[in-house]
């Protein structure tokens, strides 16, 4: 047998190396696309290892509302999941809901830091305000939340219908989020308290949302029987008993319009939703549109209201003009263009307008809105302006729950920095996004998505812990080392060293063959350089 008798460890084969393995994580597409900034891949990995409590802790570092967002977020993480084109995307929403529901049942009340002398007023108890309160209180800052409604939650409670987000779950989660904060109900800014009441606070976070329905700007929109869709939702969500036994017209194509139509249907109405463009241009989330279409609600596309009138016999009628799609507008969607003389009339008992909402900033004077949608608060009382931070729908962001939560979290960081006399710098994201080209698909098995779905999901829930673990186990861990040991196992030179935090390369012996990088399933390892490093 041709074997060297002596050890060959003196032969440092690393001197042959022409490229070097580099362990560097990329940003997974789910994390990159999460408006709330959640470390989705991170908590999926923890669920995979049955560490649900740790997963909850990691998730709530970015978003204190997993039970809420598991139900109402539109989850762009799923749409951008690398697994989407492989078999089917990871059901992040179900995992998020699973973690949130676990916490509702099992999470122990957090031990909060002792309060410092700092105090902050949060105006508006919606997702942005509550998130800000949560992260401020966790920094030892005293928080008082002012809200015009009886219960906290804002749009979560008064806008989103109960069939999408149960009130019990919502209020239980809010209780945990606002733990240690003071909540002042039925306090409307500008009426029940004013700027003067805020001057004793070290900082003020303003997140009063967008609650004022836009006008349709047509003749007759103030006729009785024509109402704001959002106000209607608020009435229903406040527990008012409303019966709709006649014809209902809902005008609009956004999430509010969908919620109004579906709620009206549930209350007995014969509902027609009218939108001036087509389904493709509807601004509502795809999931909402799918659910809308699954219910017996009539959809009338390419029709815009022109005038509303009430006949002498008391009948409420709306005249619509027929539209066709023209050139794309600034949003990229094709603009509706009226077709000459093509009119039709629908009669109704109630007409709900849901053509968009604006913030109601009537508590201030001299507020200017610039073309990018942002508001200029520099004209307000300078004593308040110096300590004011704004968030939620007052920012020119998409009006979604995760965007609002993120603005609240960032506001908390900003206020904490402000109170410490520091300059706030938002944390930098990894710039490299992991893509399908980073995945070594050899390591993954396609599943029958249809069969899988019926096995793990029942009535919109994962069927249990096993199902959650199995779903989490499908994650590619795009661009992030999950310590699978492939590099360690495959290295022909035993040049991969395990460390407490990951792996290192023993450059004395690494020949730079690149097998480790080729066999890295998620692409967090790559080869770099052309000369020995």
């Amino acid at each position, binding site marked *: *047998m*041709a*074997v*060297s*008798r*002596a*050890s*060959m*460890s003196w*032969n440092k084969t690393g001197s042959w190396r022409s490229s070097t393995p580099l362990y560097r994580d990329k940003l997974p597409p789910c994390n990159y696309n999460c408006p709330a900034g959640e470390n989705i891949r991170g908590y999926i990995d923890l669920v995979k290892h049955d560490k649900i409590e740790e997963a909850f802790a990691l998730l709530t570092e970015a978003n204190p509302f997993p039970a809420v967002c598991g139900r109402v977020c539109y989850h762009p993480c799923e749409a951008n999941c690398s697994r989407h084109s492989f078999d089917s995307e990871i059901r992040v929403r179900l995992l998020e809901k699973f973690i949130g529901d676990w916490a509702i049942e099992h999470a122990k009340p957090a031990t909060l830091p002792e309060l410092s002398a700092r105090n902050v007023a949060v105006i508006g108890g919606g997702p942005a305000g509550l998130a800000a309160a949560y992260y401020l209180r966790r920094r030892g800052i005293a928080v008082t939340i002012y809200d015009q409604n009886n219960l906290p939650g804002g749009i979560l409670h008064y806008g989103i219908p109960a069939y999408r987000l149960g009130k019990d779950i919502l209020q239980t989660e809010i209780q945990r989020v606002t733990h240690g904060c003071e909540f002042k109900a039925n306090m409307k800014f500008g009426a029940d308290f004013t700027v003067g009441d805020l001057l004793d606070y070290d900082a003020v976070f303003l997140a009063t949302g967008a609650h004022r329905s836009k006008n349709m700007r047509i003749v007759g929109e103030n006729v009785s029987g024509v109402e704001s869709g959002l106000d209607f939702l608020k009435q229903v969500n406040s527990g008012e008993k409303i019966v709709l036994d006649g014809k209902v017209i809902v005008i609009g194509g956004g999430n509010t319009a969908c919620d109004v139509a579906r709620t009206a249907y549930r209350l007995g109405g014969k509902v027609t939703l009218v939108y001036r463009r087509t389904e493709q241009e509807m601004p509502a989330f795809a999931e909402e549109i799918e659910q809308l279409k699954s219910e017996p609600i009539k959809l009338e596309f390419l029709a815009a209201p022109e005038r509303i009138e009430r006949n002498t016999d008391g009948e409420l009628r709306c005249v619509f003009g027929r539209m066709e799609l023209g050139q794309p507008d600034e949003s990229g969607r094709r603009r509706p263009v009226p077709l000459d003389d093509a009119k039709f009339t629908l009669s109704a008992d109630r007409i709900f307008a849901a053509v968009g909402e604006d913030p109601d900033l009537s508590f201030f004077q001299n507020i200017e809105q610039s073309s990018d949608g942002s508001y200029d608060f520099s004209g307000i009382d300078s004593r308040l302006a110096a300590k004011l931070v704004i968030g939620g729908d007052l920012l020119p962001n998409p009006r979604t729950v995760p965007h609002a939560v993120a603005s609240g979290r960032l506001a908390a960081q900003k206020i904490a920095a402000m109170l410490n006399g520091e300059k706030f710098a938002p944390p930098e994201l990894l710039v490299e996004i992991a893509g399908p080209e980073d995945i070594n698909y050899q390591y993954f098995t396609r599943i029958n998505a249809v069969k899988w779905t019926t096995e793990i999901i029942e009535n919109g829930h994962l069927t249990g812990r096993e199902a959650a673990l199995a779903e989490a186990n499908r994650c590619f861990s795009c661009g992030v080392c999950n310590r699978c040991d492939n590099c360690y196992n495959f290295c022909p030179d*035993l040049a991969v060293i395990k460390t407490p935090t990951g792996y290192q390369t023993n450059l004395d012996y690494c020949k730079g063959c690149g097998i480790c990088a080729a066999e890295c399933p998620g692409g967090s390892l790559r080869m770099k350089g052309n000369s020995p490093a």
Partner: protein
Amino acid sequence: MRQVISGNEATSLAVKLARVAAISAYPITPQTTISEKLSEICGSGELNAKFVKVESEHSAMATLIGAASTGVRTFTATSAQGLALMHELLFWASGARLPIVLVDVNRAMAAPWTIWCDQTDSLAQRDTGWLQFYCWSNQEIFDSIICSFKIAEELLVPCMVCYDGFFSSHTYEAVDVAGQSEVDRFLPPRKAEYFLDTKNPQTFSGGTLPGYFMEFRYKLQQAFDRAHGVIDRTYGEFAEQFGRKYDNIESYFTDDAEAVLVASGSAASTALHTVRKLRLDGKKVGLLRIRQLRPFPEQALIDALKPGQQLGVLDRNLSPGTGGVFTQEIRAALGRQGKNQPVYEFVAGLGGRDITENDIKTIFAMLGNGQGDLTQINWVGLKT
């Protein structure tokens, strides 16, 4: 315990009882049922072995070269084109002195495409430095595999156990399957003197200059010289413990035979059946069954032959341009021993064609009445 099993099942059971630690194989008919069974046995935990799935026979052999280098017992099985694909690595396994055991279920080499039996595939590997055995019964398959591990590990030479595709691999026979403790007593775990050790890195089969390469080859040849004795001793020990005796050349009715046929594999059993029938008719015919090609049992062959016998060789293989491989090997051995013995060459049964009792009778008739041609191949059953 006696069980009625196929040749391929006999292989799988023997491998399991040999407590092999690493198996790698790529499916190819008629071998496939061996690797299927072994993967099941590994998957169920019945055998504590690593079954490495690969994309080719080349990788299967490469995998075993790595595994065997760590000092463990290894096995693979293949056929025809699969064995040919391993060719390069067969040299590596023997040159590196790794006692891998391989079953080749004999199948003709394409083209034209075929899955049926002849022995050209393994005979074409005779120069790769592997021991080669040819079996004629499922019992012999089982026994040979157990013995092969012991022989290979003592000599540090890889070993190929060959038997006929379908005729043996898929035919059911009664086999006495030894118990685990019996096999353990006969075949202790492999003890490697040199093996890959991450704590003591050594170079294995590294670059060797002209000053020493020939000496490594000389040592390999020495191992094959020593193999005659090791094989005899091992099969002797096996016979003592299990009561079944195998010789590298087995003689049947040859003492007074005027015509003797040399045959191997399943065709030898048809030949023996025919010899018995011809003996009843008073014909003085005999059979030499050759069960070992490497090392070639030259002395045993010489000892088995009597002066003046008409000698024929049945070759279920073809080396185009010369003829049957067994014929060439036997002629070379006789020549080296200074025997001027004429050898008639019969090629039959290529690509799975049956070698029948009538074919054997035809051969003996040609040997008896001088119809055979000594200068060229005598094709049996050839369509013209």
